[in-house]
């Protein structure tokens, strides 16, 4: 991880322990509530994992309250989620099927867990052809509780409130590249990213339109079948012929390039910022949700530290001059934390800018962390339980 001095300037708020604990109390209770079912289920591994996650999530929120920093602590959770999700997922696949590839029979029977990445591509076929073009079950089944209806309902509820913050607090893929982006101390290709950022951030929109149109035309989840880099670390169609070999080659190449190599070079979330169509889709909801980052022009000195720190190139000089982020801001808080002049602030729409920004941050964080606990916390617990299960002395 990069040192704090290189990424973060100074905390905006530094609360006392008692006050921080008081502010953490609602999240602690929510976390306990979310993990109550885990303790009711049998299995010592799961109980240990749930306890670890409760402590982990509550401690991180406490540190957010105590230090006034968001990005640093959120990143710890997010990277853990990104790296542990494939561990738990692959472990369950191997235990169940003995392989990461999906046999056709499993696809047909609808046993594939629904992935929210295909949400934008299933809308048009569902409307016109009354077909869900994903091999999953619409309602929960005995073997697949994460059904399409459940996942879309969950996603929609949180997206309405948090907008594209989904990509910073719930996406179980983004943490992998955020982890790789955190490794190097130096930013390379910085000039390239700054110069061509305007074009690069349009690519996810193009891919979104491309996959939506083509999925509707050929009634196939095109992104899943051909473009998802994360198939490399989850599950993929079994390689049986030239076509599936090409598919697998595309997945691996995109993963190696966008999720590993480019984040290491640029210290940016390149897959999220320059490729992910679901991220572009989420950006639309930034228009209608309550929270945003704004810039107090009276304090801003145009140092562009925030622009450099932004992991998804969601800031441009023009947007900072206008006091706003671009549409693709995922509310990770990096710009707010890095600003030495406290010019970048959290903002609740409909209220004056830079008046009580900490209150806006708190309201946002309660929603975002509640989502993180509910969605990511459960994934973390499952993965940790899987790891405990594999320990040699077990």
């Amino acid at each position, binding site marked *: 991880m990069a040192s704090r001095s290189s990424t973060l300037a100074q905390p905006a708020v530094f609360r006392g322990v008692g006050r921080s604990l008081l502010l953490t109390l609602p999240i602690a209770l929510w976390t306990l509530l979310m993990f109550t079912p885990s303790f009711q289920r049998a299995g010592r591994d799961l109980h240990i994992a749930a306890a670890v996650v409760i402590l982990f999530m509550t401690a991180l929120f406490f540190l957010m309250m105590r230090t006034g920093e968001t990005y640093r602590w959120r990143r710890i959770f997010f990277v853990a989620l990104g790296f542990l999700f494939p561990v738990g997922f692959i472990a369950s696949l191997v235990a169940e099927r003995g392989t990461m590839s999906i046999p056709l029979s499993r696809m047909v029977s609808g046993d594939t867990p629904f992935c929210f990445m295909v949400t934008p591509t299933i809308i*048009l*076929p569902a409307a*016109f*052809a009354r077909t869900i073009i994903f091999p999953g079950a619409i309602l929960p089944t005995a073997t697949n509780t994460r059904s399409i209806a459940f996942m879309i309902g969950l996603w929609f509820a949180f997206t309405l409130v948090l907008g594209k913050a989904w990509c910073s607090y719930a996406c179980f893929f983004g943490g992998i590249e955020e982890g790789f982006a955190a490794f190097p101390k130096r930013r390379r290709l910085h000039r390239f990213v700054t110069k061509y950022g305007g*074009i690069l951030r*349009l*690519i996810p*929109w*193009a*891919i979104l*339109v*491309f996959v939506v*149109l*083509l999925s*509707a*035309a050929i009634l196939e989840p095109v992104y899943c079948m051909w473009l998802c880099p994360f198939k490399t670390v989850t599950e993929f169609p079994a390689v049986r012929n030239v*076509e599936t070999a090409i598919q697998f080659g595309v997945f691996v190449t995109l993963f190696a390039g966008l999720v590993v190599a480019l984040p290491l070079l640029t210290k940016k979330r390149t897959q999220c910022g320059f490729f992910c169509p679901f991220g572009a889709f989420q950006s639309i909801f930034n228009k209608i949700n309550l929270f945003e980052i704004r810039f107090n022009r009276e304090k801003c000195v145009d140092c562009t530290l925030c622009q450099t720190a932004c992991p998804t190139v969601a800031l441009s000089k023009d947007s900072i001059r206008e006091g706003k982020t671009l549409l693709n801001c995922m509310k990770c808080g990096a710009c707010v934390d890095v600003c030495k002049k406290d010019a970048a602030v959290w903002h609740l729409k409909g209220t004056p800018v830079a008046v009580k920004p900490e209150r806006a941050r708190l309201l946002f964080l309660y929603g975002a962390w509640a989502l993180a606990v509910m969605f990511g916390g459960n994934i973390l617990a499952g993965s940790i339980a899987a790891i405990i299960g594999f320990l040699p002395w077990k």
Partner: protein
Amino acid sequence: MLGLTTGPVCLASCGPVVLPWMLVQPQGVRWHSRQLLLFLAARLAGYLVFAAAVWLVGSSIPHAWSRRSWLVGGIQVLLAAALVVYAAGWPRRRCALAQPSSQLVQIGEAPRPRTSGALALGFLTGISLCPPFLVAGVRAAQLAHLWAALLFFAFFFVGTAVWFFPYLSLGFVQRTPAVVTVARMVAILLACWYGFSGVSILIERAFYG
């Protein structure tokens, strides 16, 4: 009735071609209406050519995959090329003065609209062998007279064409540089897809028969 009921499929299968191509056109519903009419006219021409072909050779084209695959692959490769030329705008004209800004004072007549894109894309989507099209082809091949087959396809066209009018709403979309750039990128991606798909079919046909 066949055209009306299968219209949504036509809307979806032609969407990848129509949407990016229309978004790189200038803004305005009037302009879009003219372009869409040209596109549909070319599409009708494609339909009638196909109707005549299936009537002449019987229903063997829609049925026999071995013959159809050459056609499907070839059409997809041509569609990819047409998307690159007309929607992505490559290769571009070298002289910037060839497309003067609309804000400049215009001397003489207004430049004539480019219609070749609408005609090429309309014709190529018109002969693309999508499922409802093949159903119509089988029916047309069974008819007793050529004029009956042509009439059948003309009515089929009218039924499907109704579904294309929602595309006129694209005329209202503001043509910011970002919108046009995204449309061009989409066209390139789709051209890659159609090219890959077409070439795959042709290679498969060449090697495996």
